[in-house]
């Protein structure tokens, strides 16, 4: 071994490395012969220790690795069961667009076997359930009985392992999904609770999302004695009815688009027949959509709150603030322009273009 170390330290070291590398890659060359002539040519180049940039023909220094190696073999996008783990952090920090631009597969759609979750293998994934989708109306899971409950409690259970103990000493297992050391038998989510929930949530200044989960008896009650019944949604704002449309009760949720921003809405579902109509359950909560754009109300009301002053939950500064005279509109406009130099930034989107329009000072990338 001392001789080997001598060679490593001597000028023959690089040659030894080259020979080792060539031998290793030659073995691989043999394994890949069947992959065809193109693969063979690439392996032969590797065996000569000369990885080549295919487009430019320039030599890449030894040891940088092959930027295309991850495209083949184990762990490649063709074989990967799920996107690269860094996708979450990339999406969060650099924006959703970045995960689609990335050279690695960071999103589900980049996987070649994305459409077939059953190929994910033992312990992989939530077999049978489409990724990204919860239990829709068509879900096959049985509806929960009244008062909740599902079948999972019937499953036999092993004794609980001591979770505060040191981690298991078994060989490392990576990223097991589903098959945990102790199967809790949690079962599947109920497809419905049938608790007569009917809720409205604001999505953006013009969109309201509704979801409902009525008990069969509630729906039956509304249908009773009606001829040719159909389900109709009515939407009200503070001034009265603003929209009315038929929908399928089985959809269980609905996005209402193109609503007026800054207004408060309430929805109700009805069964309408040729001989009358009945409401299904109760109306939704009152849901306020945010306004879009700056307020037209100019009221420069100020308050002074010393730092040590405790804030009570009942404080209402709008009724106790001190009004000051408004500033000139030109001044306000300048501050406004400075506040909006470009399009709006989002934590999960990146801002492209870098428009500097409206920016009243000059900034520069280079000082």
């Amino acid at each position: 071994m001392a001789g080997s170390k001598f060679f490593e330290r001597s000028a023959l070291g690089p040659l030894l490395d080259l020979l080792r590398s060539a031998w290793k890659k030659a073995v691989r060359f043999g394994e890949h012969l069947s992959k065809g002539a193109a693969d063979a040519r690439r392996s032969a180049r590797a065996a000569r220790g000369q990885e080549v940039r295919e487009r430019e023909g320039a030599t890449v220094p030894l040891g940088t690795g092959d930027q295309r190696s991850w495209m083949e073999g184990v762990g490649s996008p063709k074989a990967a069961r799920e996107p690269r783990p860094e996708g979450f952090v990339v999406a969060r920090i650099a924006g959703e667009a970045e995960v689609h631009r990335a050279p690695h597969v960071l999103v589900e759609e980049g996987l070649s076997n994305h459409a077939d979750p059953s190929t994910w293998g033992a312990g992989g994934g939530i077999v049978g359930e489409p990724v990204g989708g919860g239990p829709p109306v068509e879900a096959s899971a049985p509806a929960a009985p009244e008062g909740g409950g599902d079948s999972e409690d019937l499953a036999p259970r092993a004794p609980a392992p001591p979770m505060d103990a040191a981690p298991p000493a078994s060989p490392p297992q990576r990223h097991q999904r589903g098959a945990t050391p102790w199967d809790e038998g949690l079962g599947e989510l109920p497809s419905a609770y049938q608790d007569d929930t009917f809720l409205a949530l604001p999505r953006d200044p013009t969109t309201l999302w509704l979801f409902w989960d009525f008990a069969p008896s509630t729906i039956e009650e509304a249908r009773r004695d009606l001829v040719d019944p159909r389900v109709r949604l009515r939407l009200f704002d503070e001034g009265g009815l603003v929209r009315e449309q038929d929908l399928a009760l089985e959809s269980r949720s609905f996005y209402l688009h193109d609503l007026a921003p800054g207004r408060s809405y309430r929805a109700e579902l009805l069964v309408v027949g040729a001989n009358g109509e009945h409401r299904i359950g109760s109306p939704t909560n009152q849901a306020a959509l945010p306004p879009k754009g700056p307020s037209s109300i100019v009221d420069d009301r100020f308050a002074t709150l010393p730092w040590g002053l405790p804030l009570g939950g009942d404080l209402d500064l709008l009724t106790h603030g001190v009004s000051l005279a408004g500033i000139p509109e030109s001044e306000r406009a300048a501050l406004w322009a400075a506040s909006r130099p470009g399009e709006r930034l989002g934590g999960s989107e990146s801002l492209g273009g870098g428009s500097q329009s409206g920016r009243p000072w000059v900034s520069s990338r280079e000082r």
Partner: protein
Amino acid sequence: MKGYLVLQLHAHLPFVRHPEHERFLEEDWLYEAITETYLPLISRFETLADEGIPFRLSLTMTPSLVQMLRDDLLQWRYGEHLDRLCELADKEVDRTRHEPRLHDTARFYHHHFNHLRWLWHERYHRDLVGAFAKLQDRGVIEIITCGATHGFLPLMQTQPEAVRAQIAIAAAHYRHHFQRDPVGIWLPECGFYPGVERLLAEEGIRYFFVDTHGILDAQPKPRYGVFAPLYTPAGVAAFGRDPESSEQVWSAGTGYPGDPVYRDFYRDIGYDLDLDYVRPYVQATGDRKSTGFKYHRITGATADKDLYDWRAAFAQADRHAGNFLFNRERQIEHLALVMGDRRPVVVAPYDAELFGHWWFEGPVFLEMLIRKAAYDQNVFRLATASDYLRENPSQQVATPPLCSWGAGGYSGVWLDGSNDWIYRHLHRIAEQMIALARDYAQPTPLERRALNQAARELLLAQSSDWAFIMKTGTMVEYAVQRTKEHVLRFQRLERQIRSGTIDEGWLGYAEGKDNIFPELDYGIYRPRA
């Protein structure tokens, strides 16, 4: 001094702790963030403080992150992770010994990771929360809190008890870990809706942050745009993000991190080298992953990347810090002219993990910016939001609209065709939790354990990260499974509590697995008269 610059870093990761597996891929989010962001930032801030450089900086530490950083198991596992990095660094120094440029970078990594290991074990004794807390005690950073599990509050507004729990549990957690009251909060995803400010005031929280339009679209119209905070009617101040300073650092297209000299995020020996060589450092299944050893620079919009030169990259970070400083000087000078007697505040919030993890040279940028701000200019002062409010107690009163910092500016990221199915379940179990808290005023000790665990499962299911992952299509399988597991555990607990059949063995398992907020009291969900 003509104005203020508030640098606000938001450090957050969802609760990813999997004691049931020896190694679990999503835990790498934490380990990589510690290695590339938290340790480098603490170390640099500490150096600056030791040198007596005056600065103030604001940092969110979300309760889920604090809980993970304080978790014995994750600390132990991170130590092993660091050991593997240092082992690979040894191999890399040897592997690259005949390639001078690669070898130089390998030696840099060798020093870097061994230094981090020394910091972790010897300097900070594996307690980064304690290290950050000491920096707060020294007066250089201000740590603020966040929603308990980063639940997106605008979509919980029909259940004020659930919103109150997210805020009150976070505040109690903060007091427990930092021995003081939280003065500020980073609302999860900057998600605000009118009315939430009253729940913040109940906890003594004095300020929060919103995206730019959260200020500009407030009612009445704000007098000073985003360059002064607003007092909400409850007295809690809202600070708005300055888009100019955000763009310079954040933008993928025009921001500093895209400079060709900086280290490329994607090229990594975990993907580039022979699998046999990197196998011990990627997934045991053979799936490749990043190792943290990256030898290429961004170069440009090309797949052929040039080699990384860390000295050149660090020098560029220094230059970019100077450029950022210059632009803030001009900006604040101009604003001071327009705003007359009022000193402008420019709020520049970023995800903390941007610095180091995404932008490797980011911590250098921050350090150099702080140094230059202290010595190379006298236009503005680095401050925290509380510094500003202490010195400027008179502000305009207005109410921001519902808003967030997500794409589109509202709830669209977290309420979308890809993820809206979760709200049926989240709403249901929150209703059940509120009912449990109402019905079990005097539980037995075992019932109390089960009730507290039910609250933990609800909180974990509410994390906005799961909906975000489903929307962005990244680790969807994991996000779906986490949501389902927490909802299902809650539902089993609820049934067992109601039927008086609590399975103590399984309860212990759930407590050990989802062990967030051990001090939690489910009574926070009790409806108020």
